[in-house]
């Protein structure tokens, strides 16, 4: 069992071992980098297939099925085509900025993915400030979006990039704060430490994940919403809102540059999902003690696929919000909720050593109740339905 769990770790060590001593560090870095790029790029291909097939399922149709079994080679065909396609740089566009943007859209995302542990002892770089590093790389992506929008010299591109940046900045706030709630609870910014803090089982069965605490549950849901917005997925996919501003900042990109943007987008999605798994869902840990025999990396990627399926489901069912509603939601609902989540965490920690009877229950009531009441109040404030009331329709005979 342990051999399977540590398969890739041992494999890497074996390969590194073949090289002379002074080369080993370099080889190790190269292998890790190649693994991250390779695995996530492969995952990107599978995800586009899952997305197209999943949307097909939701919409009563088969989806791609002509190339390879179940259409599995469809991403390969798309990739080949993207490579073949002519690369157009509009005459009035800023050549350098236009060309750099897609590269800058991918590189920081890959760097961010490097700090996420994908299994036991399987993390490319264990940074002390891994969490902050992840968010910092997300900030670089905004520059790429701006460069794409501005460099293309197109009104729609500019509108799209402005929308995208405004949205990303607004949702970065709750995203970072809900991440920091976990950091506060654990007392470390290192993602490896955060997973370590979620070790052990309640009653020997249910894992001690953060999501099974009141502040963790609230934080997880808030993080999920903010991550959806940060990754530009429905219902927050305004930056590329097809029916309004066509393709947003990617409007003028063709061929492989467009594919790079796509890659960046999906890798950002993996990063967000991976971080959510790490922070709240125990990373590579099993949910129940009796399932520990399944290798840790399988748990991580299994959870990742569950997230991908969830995002596909959202995409197939929800309409998109309007820009001002998006902002309103971020500032009037998400931000206060996240700040209250800090208070809920404080309450939870403060009552950790209570010795009253049913202490566990009381902690839940106190900490969870705070979040629930806040949710009810803020939702009433923000909900469009409650604001306008139900409608009745008259009928003329």
């Amino acid at each position, binding site marked *: 069992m342990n051999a399977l769990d540590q398969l890739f770790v041992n494999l890497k060590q074996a390969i590194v071992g073949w090289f002379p001593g002074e080369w080993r560090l370099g080889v190790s870095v190269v292998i890790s980098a190649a693994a991250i790029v390779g695995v996530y790029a492969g995952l990107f291909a599978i995800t586009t297939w899952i997305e197209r097939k999943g949307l097909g399922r939701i919409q009563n149709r088969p989806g791609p099925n002509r190339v390879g079994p179940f259409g599995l080679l469809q991403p390969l065909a798309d990739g080949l085509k993207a490579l073949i396609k002519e690369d157009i740089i509009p005459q009035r566009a800023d050549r350098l900025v236009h060309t750099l943007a897609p590269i800058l859209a991918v590189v920081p995302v890959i760097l961010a993915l490097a700090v996420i542990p994908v299994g036991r002892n399987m993390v490319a770089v264990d940074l002390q400030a891994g969490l902050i590093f992840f968010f910092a790389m997300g900030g670089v992506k905004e520059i790429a979006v701006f460069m794409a929008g501005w460099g293309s010299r197109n009104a729609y591109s500019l509108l799209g990039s402005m*929308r995208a940046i405004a949205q990303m900045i607004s949702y970065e706030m709750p995203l970072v704060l809900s991440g920091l709630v976990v950091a506060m609870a654990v007392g470390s910014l290192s993602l490896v430490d955060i997973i370590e803090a979620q070790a052990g089982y309640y009653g020997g069965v249910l894992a001690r994940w953060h999501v099974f605490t009141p502040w963790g549950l609230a934080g997880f849901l808030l993080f999920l919403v903010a991550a959806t917005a940060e990754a530009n997925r429905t219902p927050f996919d305004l930056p590329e809102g*097809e*029916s309004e501003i*066509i393709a947003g900042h990617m409007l003028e990109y063709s061929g492989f540059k467009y594919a790079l943007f796509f890659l960046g987008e999906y890798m950002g999605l993996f990063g967000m999902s991976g971080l959510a798994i790490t922070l709240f869902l125990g990373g590579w840990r099993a949910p129940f003690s009796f399932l520990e025999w399944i290798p840790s990396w399988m748990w991580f990627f299994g959870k990742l696929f569950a997230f991908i399926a969830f995002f596909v489901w959202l995409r197939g*069912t929800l*309409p998109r919000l309007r820009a*001002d*509603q998006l902002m309103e939601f971020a500032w009037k609902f998400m931000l206060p909720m996240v700040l209250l989540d800090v208070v809920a965490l404080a309450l939870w920690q403060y009552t950790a050593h209570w010795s009253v009877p049913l202490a566990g229950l009381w902690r839940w009531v106190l900490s969870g109740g705070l979040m629930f009441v806040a949710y009810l109040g803020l939702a009433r404030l923000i909900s469009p339905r409650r604001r306008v009331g139900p409608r009745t329709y008259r009928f003329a005979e």
Partner: protein
Amino acid sequence: MSKPLDFDAAEQLAMATGDVEPEQLDHDAPVSLPPPGPRYEAVPRAASPAIPEPEGELLEVSVGPHHPSTHGVFRMNVVLDGEKIVQLKPVFGYLHRNHEKLGEQTTYLGNMPYTDRLDYFCSLSNNWAYALAVEKLAGLKVPERAEYIRVITAELTRLVNHSSLVGFLLHDMGTMGTPLMYAFREREKILDAFEALTGARMMCNYHRFGGCRVDLPPGWLDQVRTIVDNFPRFIDEMERLLSENEVLIARTHGVGVLPPELAVNAGVTGPSLRASGINYDLRKVDRYGIYDRFQFRVPLGEKGDVYDRYMMRILEMRESVKILQQALRDIPEGPVIDPKVRLRNFTPPVGEAYGRIEAPKGELGFYLISDGSKKPYRYRIRPPSFINLTVLEDMCRGHTLADAVIILGAVDIVLGEVDR
């Protein structure tokens, strides 16, 4: 109006075409006023209000003619202040196919296929409106069975149009086509019935002056009964998915409000008008065909925003199902076309006629002037899409570009009818 008047053809033509000298008209003759009803003050429409001082820089964006949500080739020149619309100028004519001019070069029967391509979602309604105009012109009677078939086909067309519209509206809101796919699933079922009846999916060309082209194929009524009986389940499904959806409510409530005064003054008809709360449905007003035999209600909105327009479609589909059920129950046997009508060399007497029906998009009218030849002297269409579109700027001003897209979607235009 449809009867030939008692002065000679040349004079009548001159009057109708406006070639008559003004002093020849008798101004002192008593004018028959329309019956008293709810009156609306004429609200002067500011043609192009001055652009208010912007906070930032104005951005001029041309939405269309190739744009995913202009429903064809239509252009809106939008002046944006940030994301807010300060001015919106529609530009038409990208699908101007000379419909009316061609209509004057073609025989009365030859025009029938052209009407299919007018509003290409509802070819059978267009057929009926045109047939009605010609029947008025020539004074033809329609057999009982044909009237029932016309009602059935027209109401099925309404179901096709309204369900597709809801799908397209949600598509404009960014649902990746899921409601549209569900709507098209129902559309395909109805199109199968149309194909069995007329031989074509979209361009049916089925109605004739004085009846319908052919009788129903065997088993057709049962096929339609199955479709109609299952249709409420589809509407329920749509409503469960959409009507209470938080995002849909957020996007549509209070967006693109059309005040009833403006709606009446601009000549808006159809569900858009009824969403503003005005009870005007030609099926009730004109009672053309045999609509007075059916029990159905006309839903009316209260706010006149996009959500009301969406709900109008849903509720009207439910009423259409009721009409269909009654029609399918009562349809008699008999001939489907007046055997005396000579379609080939159809020559109506001199005169003029205006035939109108409640098409899914509003009042669709055909105005014909006959000079006694085989071709209409003047052939004019009152297209509901086009006239409903005239209030677009008033509805959009002050909203964002994203709202303009769904306001346009809820107006329900088909460019074939707008540009003709």
